């Protein structure tokens, strides 16, 4: 009863407060991290003084802080026309869009700010990152490249710059920047990005080092177990790849890569039933995937189902006539299926494809 009475008296006091008092109370609440009280107070100020720009700005900041980005954005926008110096609020607006995940609009606001404050590297970083997030890595490169030399010790800059290089296809250039960020943190995200990129570049040993470090720092990173498993597998450490893929599948049974790799590992170990289950699942998830179809065909061939294996390989060869491996096995399979003429034709195809590899020669691949 005493508590109810106390609350009632506080409500009465709020009703009686002047806009200035409410504004001050809002600021204090905001400073103490009590954003709901701050929002309530600023709204009351605006009920009484709808054009109070400062209240709008503060309300926008409080709303953004609690994740109510749409209302925060609307509030900032309503404040902007009345402001002489728009840049601080434009930055807040841009950040609200950025945090909301609306990177197109964030870009738009950051571009305005960049034009106004071209030497502000923070704006460049955020604009560059927004460029990357909307799939415009070349725009990010154009923006960041002139700034790269003098910001090499700014790890935020390095991360975005390295990411831009990677996403624009300059992966070998980008990885050292990301690895620098990773080591300076240490940052699990940066290790993850560096490792995943190196994996794509077939630089498996270093990829594995980075990914193992990412896993050590944060085992909750998305796809980390699959990536670590892949790196282990590619470096020949099948024994330790297997538990990583199993862990990945524990977290997400529909992880295509983990199903495929684990199936292939088990097939290699001739645990045929288990291998088949994982490869079948991989095929269900991505029926058109070439590797899943190839592994499945190999399993059928080793199991003695030559006819089915041949059919599957024929389809793969049809889809990608220059992929050597299906032809290699098809040639042998045709002889087993008593189709020597077809086998001879496949051997010719294998000879042609291997000759093309040889024409390139070592060091040109």
């Amino acid at each position, binding site marked *: 009863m005493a508590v109810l009475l106390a609350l009632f008296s506080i409500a009465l006091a709020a009703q009686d407060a002047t806009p200035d008092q409410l504004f001050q109370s809002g600021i204090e609440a905001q400073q103490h991290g009590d954003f709901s009280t701050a929002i309530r107070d600023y709204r009351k100020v605006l009920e009484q003084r709808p054009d109070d720009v400062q209240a709008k700005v503060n309300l926008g900041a409080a709303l953004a802080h609690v994740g109510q980005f749409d209302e925060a954005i609307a509030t900032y926008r309503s404040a902007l026309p009345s402001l002489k110096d728009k840049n601080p609020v434009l930055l807040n607006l841009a950040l609200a869009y950025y945090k909301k995940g609306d990177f197109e609009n964030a870009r738009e606001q950051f571009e305005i700010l960049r034009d106004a404050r071209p030497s502000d590297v923070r704006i460049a970083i955020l604009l560059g990152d927004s460029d990357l997030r909307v799939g415009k890595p070349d725009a990010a490169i154009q923006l960041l490249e002139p700034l790269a030399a003098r910001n090499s010790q700014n790890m935020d800059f390095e991360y975005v710059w390295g990411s831009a290089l990677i996403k624009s296809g300059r992966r070998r250039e980008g990885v050292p920047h990301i690895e620098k960020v990773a080591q300076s943190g240490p940052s699990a995200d940066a290790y993850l990005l560096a490792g995943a990129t190196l994996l794509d570049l077939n*630089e498996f040993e270093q990829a594995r080092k980075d990914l193992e470090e990412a896993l050590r720092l944060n085992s909750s990173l998305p796809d980390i177990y699959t990536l670590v498993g892949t790196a282990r597998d590619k470096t*020949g*450490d099948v024994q*330790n790849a297997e538990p990583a893929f199993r862990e990945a599948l524990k977290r997400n049974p529909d992880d295509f890569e983990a199903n495929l790799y684990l199936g292939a590992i088990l097939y*290699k170990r001739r645990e045929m039933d288990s291998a088949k289950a994982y490869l079948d699942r991989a095929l269900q998830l991505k029926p058109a995937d070439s590797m899943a179809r190839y592994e499945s065909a190999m399993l059928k061939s080793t199991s003695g189902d030559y006819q089915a294996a041949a059919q599957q390989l024929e389809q793969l060869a049809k889809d990608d006539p220059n992929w050597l491996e299906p032809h290699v096995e098809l040639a042998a399979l045709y002889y087993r299926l008593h189709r*020597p003429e077809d086998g001879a034709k496949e051997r010719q195809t294998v000879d042609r494809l291997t*000759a093309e590899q040889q024409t390139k020669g*070592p060091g040109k691949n």
Partner: protein
Amino acid sequence: MPLVPRRTATASLLVVAVALLLHAAPAASPIRFELKRIPFHLENDETPARNAPETMPGGVAVFDYNGDGRPDIFFTNGANIATLKKDAPKYRNRLFRNDGNGVFTDVTDTAGLAGTGYDMGVAVGDYNNDGHPDLFVAGLHHSTLYHNNGDGTFTDVTVKSGLDASLNRPDSEFGPYWAITAAWVDVNNDGLLDLFVVNYMQWTYSAEPLCGFKGVGDYCHPKFYKGQPNQLFLNNGDGTFKEVSKEWGLREHVGKGMGVGVADYDLDGRQDLFVTNDSTYNSLFHNLGKKFEEVAFETGVALPEDGAFISGMGLDFRDFNNDGYPDIAFVALNNQTFPLFLNTGKGAFREVTTETGMHDASLGDTGFGAGLYDFDNDGWKDLFVSGGHVQSISMPGQPVDRYNMVFRNPGASGKWVALTEEAGFGAATPARHRGCAFGDFDGDGRVDVVVTALGQDAEIWMNRSEQSGHWLDLALRGTKSNRDGIGARIKLVTKSGPQYNHMTTSVGYASSSDGPVHFGLGPDKRADLIEIHWPSGIVQTLKDVPADQVLSVVEPSH
């Protein structure tokens, strides 16, 4: 308190003691080797550029060059990779005379076998039937035939024999030949050993690395190089040879030959050849008498069961299941297994790598040389493998330096078991082992092994298997057939059953083993029957032969 009779108490103590002993000392490995060193250092001139040939030496031969009954050892060696010349003494090939009691003496200079080029492999055979085994040394762009003069010296007869013109001059289509190894085999059953040369691929020197990792050079995958065909030289019987590669149907089969095994797989009386190729299909050359037909696909040995190209290396082509038909075992890199192909007896082979346990036992292993010998004399041939990777940079989980290993054949049932530490191979540090050759260096009836390793001293592994059974070695001397008896098929029957072997010196990787034909007899103290099918067609029968001896057998006149 009940009284315990003294006798019972003693028995209890004995039981405890036996139990303690069992726990303290694990059961001894049925096959066990002891390491001996021999002062031969394999110099491959490994450069930062990692030219492909630098990872390919070196072969080794076991043969009795001076006829004293003790097997001697010949090693091939590298050279300056840029010039392909042995421009320093360290590159000399070596011949070590077995003086008995474990003493080997370097007699290279006296013998005249130091060589001149970047040598790879070696094949032993008495090509002129004079009773003195001769040497063919396969090399990079230059191979050599040495005639054994019978007085402890050899003469380079490469030019005189007519081989130089075909072997050591660039081919118009395939360039200079890179011979890895060779086989002496009488392909036309005329009593003269012919020469089959295994060629690898087309290569030219580079001072800069063409492949590698993060700027550090490593060996390029063979898929980037063009292959070369193998060659056949018929023995004219007058010290000269004639190349018949085209006429015998070999030139059209371009491969990347690594190893060759000789056996009559279909028992038609003619010697066939199985060739492992690096990262392409294997070849099985079926001998039709006047030419070969390549039948690897038809017989099911072109590709292992995984359906992908593997790095086929050293091999042996012998009957490992004692059914009278020669089978095939060869080795490859890790994750490729060491495939076993069982001869069905119907002109084809069936891969049994998985069902024999060899798949699981070898999946993580990497080998170069291989040989099927009965190391514990139990009547079943085991597989020795010299371990080592082709690459020079280790990856996690993929060390390039490896131990040697032996896979024990369980006999009629059970799975093959890999023995490494148990067999004593942990006594040497892991290395990039290459060639291996086999012979009984100390005459104790147990087959010993000599192994080379890149940039290392060679290893001699003396067979010290404690539970070794009885044995019988047959030293053949052909009269109508070639003098070495190469190609002779032998059936030996004891109380435990029949087993089979044949005479060949082509075993392993780039290596040659010219010992008597070895049989382990297990518990049997005699062979009830020995049946020798000579290449001439003559069948010789011996009965009731005591075990534990080297028996000289001369081919009868009819």
